[in-house]
């Protein structure tokens, strides 16, 4: 309780509170602009947090994360274009409702459902993170190694295009952490005489380069001249009876609860992300509904499911990040980078070694979730305007802020080159259909995997211990199951693809 009070008091100090509000506003704006993902917004805000103390910086990023989930629904409902990937399913009913003449109801159903889903998921966030972190403290190097292997196998097997490419991306990510001094003896490896590489590739320029360039270049490819300018339509009626909206959400409490749990669970799974939560919750709401045929015509059920799940996803993602140092999605991967910048080692020791910071993050999550409603109420008109910012202005601005963020890590222009080179690699990987998530996860976990593997073998040279120690063995069995599942899924997809190409197109 003392930790809660201390964290809340720090959070309510004007500088931290202002940063949190600024983070939520930035998240809402970034989330609302189609083409700017939440990850991108976090990347853009990150350099601003370098001069802050760790809690202030992390509170800002949590504000962006929470605000971004709600921002995505604004363009999803008003324009029919999801502002973020985690608002895809929101467009199905949100936009239909807005087109029917109820844009205010559509937006506010999403905002309130997001608030309730976020708050409900906050409780498991606190309990889950504390319990899992306490459990992880009992792990030895065998268990940590196997847990990280499990994480990588889950992410690789969930890869969109190919299990094999997911594994290759993970292996490349792991290899990138080998460059530089080895973590046990400090012997330089693969530096090729470059002093810059002695400390290895700096994590943030690599991460930001891979994500920012891949996203922006795909947007440039897809864009059509004048598309952004045509997005905003005439004046929209956004006023609504909030009591009625809240009553409507509570009348569907099973939908709200189920979608929140789905979002939370998907968030806990490493590197899966809010888009899967959003679509799965929508799909389940439709399956459990007494009127599934009305989904997609602009009913409240779809909006409630989609928005409560993606906000709950944030909490789930923070659980794995805080308990194990494993990112739940790309946003929490950047937040792990922010922790490292502030000299904090993410991982199972994080909560026990920095309890004030951990509780501060919990409190920031709750406060950011609560703040979303008044901030949206105050800025909704501005947010509607924000979605019309054209891509040709966004691209240079984002790249410069990415360059500043890369440079600011340790004031080296070489970091900006790293940002650029990994920007090329990220885009090439996307074009060659290699998933980025396993690469990033490999990059985050690489050092830890090596340290724990070597530590385990040096403690006891019997490699069978990885299998015979119950928890470690369980993790490895689950890794094999996950891998097997990936193989089955890949075969199913290949068969479906062959069948589809065998059936002649009807025009």
């Amino acid at each position, binding site marked *: 309780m003392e930790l809660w009070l201390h964290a809340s008091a720090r959070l309510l100090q004007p500088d931290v509170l202002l940063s949190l509000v600024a983070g939520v506003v930035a998240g809402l704006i970034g989330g609302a602009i189609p083409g700017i993902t939440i990850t991108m917004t976090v990347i853009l805000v990150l*350099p*601003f947090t*370098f*001069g802050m103390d760790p809690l202030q910086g992390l509170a800002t990023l949590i504000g962006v994360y929470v605000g971004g989930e709600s921002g995505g629904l604004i363009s999803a409902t008003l324009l029919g274009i999801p502002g973020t990937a985690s608002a895809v399913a929101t467009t199905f009913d949100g936009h239909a409702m807005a087109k029917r003449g109820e844009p205010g109801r559509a937006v506010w159903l999403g905002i309130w459902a997001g608030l309730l889903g976020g708050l409900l998921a906050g409780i498991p966030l606190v309990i889950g993170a504390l319990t899992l972190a306490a459990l992880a403290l009992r792990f030895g190097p065998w268990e940590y190694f196997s847990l990280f292997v499990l994480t990588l196998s889950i992410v690789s097997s969930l890869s969109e295009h190919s299990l*094999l*490419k997911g*594994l*290759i991306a993970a*292996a*490349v990510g*792991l*290899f990138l952490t*080998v460059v530089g001094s*080895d973590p*046990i*003896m400090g*012997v*330089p*490896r*693969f530096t090729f005489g470059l002093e810059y590489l002695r400390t290895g590739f700096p994590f943030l320029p690599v991460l930001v380069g891979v994500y920012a360039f891949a996203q*922006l*270049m795909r947007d*440039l*490819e*897809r*864009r059509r*001249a*004048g598309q952004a300018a045509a997005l905003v339509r005439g004046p929209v009626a956004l006023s609504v009876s909030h009591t009625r909206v809240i009553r409507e959400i509570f009348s569907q409490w099973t939908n709200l609860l189920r979608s929140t749990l789905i979002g939370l669970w998907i968030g806990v799974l490493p590197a899966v992300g809010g888009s899967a939560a959003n679509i799965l919750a929508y799909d389940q709401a439709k399956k459990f509904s007494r009127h599934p045929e009305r989904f997609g015509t602009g009913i409240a059920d779809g909006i409630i499911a989609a928005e409560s799940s993606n906000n709950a996803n944030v909490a789930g993602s923070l659980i794995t990040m805080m308990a194990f140092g494993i990112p739940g999605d790309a946003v929490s991967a950047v937040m792990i980078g922010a922790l490292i910048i502030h000299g904090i080692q993410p991982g199972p020791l994080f909560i026990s070694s920095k309890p004030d910071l951990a509780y501060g993050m919990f409190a920031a999550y709750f406060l950011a979730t609560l703040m979303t409603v008044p901030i949206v109420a105050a800025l909704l008109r501005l947010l509607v305007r924000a979605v019309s910012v*054209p*891509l*040709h*202005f966004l*691209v*240079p*601005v984002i*790249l*410069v*802020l990415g*360059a*500043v963020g890369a*440079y*600011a890590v340790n*004031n080296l*222009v070489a970091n*900006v*080159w790293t940002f*650029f080179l990994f*920007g*090329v690699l990220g*885009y090439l990987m996307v074009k*060659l259909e290699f998933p980025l998530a396993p690469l990033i996860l490999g990059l985050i976990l690489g050092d830890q995997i*090596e340290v724990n*593997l*070597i530590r385990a*073998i*040096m403690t006891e*040279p019997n490699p069978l211990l990885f299998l015979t120690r119950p928890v470690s063995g369980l993790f490895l069995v689950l890794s094999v199951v996950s891998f097997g599942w990936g193989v089955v899924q890949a075969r199913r997809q290949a068969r479906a693809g*062959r069948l589809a*190409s065998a059936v002649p197109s009807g025009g």
Partner: protein
Amino acid sequence: MGRDGIVGLFLLAITLWLYQHTGEIPHPPFIPLGPEFYPRGLLGLLGGLSVALVATDVLSRGSDPTSRRGKKEESFRRRIEPYGQVLLTYFLFGGYVALMPLVGFRVATLLFVAALAWMLGPRSVRHGVVSVSLAAAFTAAVYFVFEVYLKLLLPRGVITGV
């Protein structure tokens, strides 16, 4: 052989080259597992996966001879059309980073933002004016936020001194 096969071969070549370099990593005495142990394992895994990628590509092409026909029929010009602005952005960004130590962050940023915003948007005088104005305002904002407020010293230029 298809694109995946070529990528697999390329990865395999890099992996073998890096594996050969593991022999140059010094092995401290009295240490059973040296610093080369983990990278060798990892490169072995990457090599195996690269071979698997090549094999998968070759096998899948053997069973589906129609897979590339559609792509070949598409004209080369049409295929590269969407990448013009992508290449331009990479080119200008590379120039921006190269220019940064010479003319300084502020001048390089002003030039880069104005040039890229103008070249990606409609080619009109009005858009040119808006692009330059945006670049000036943005550069000033970045300077005040990062240098003045956050005390981050951005790169100075050896030529301009700013």
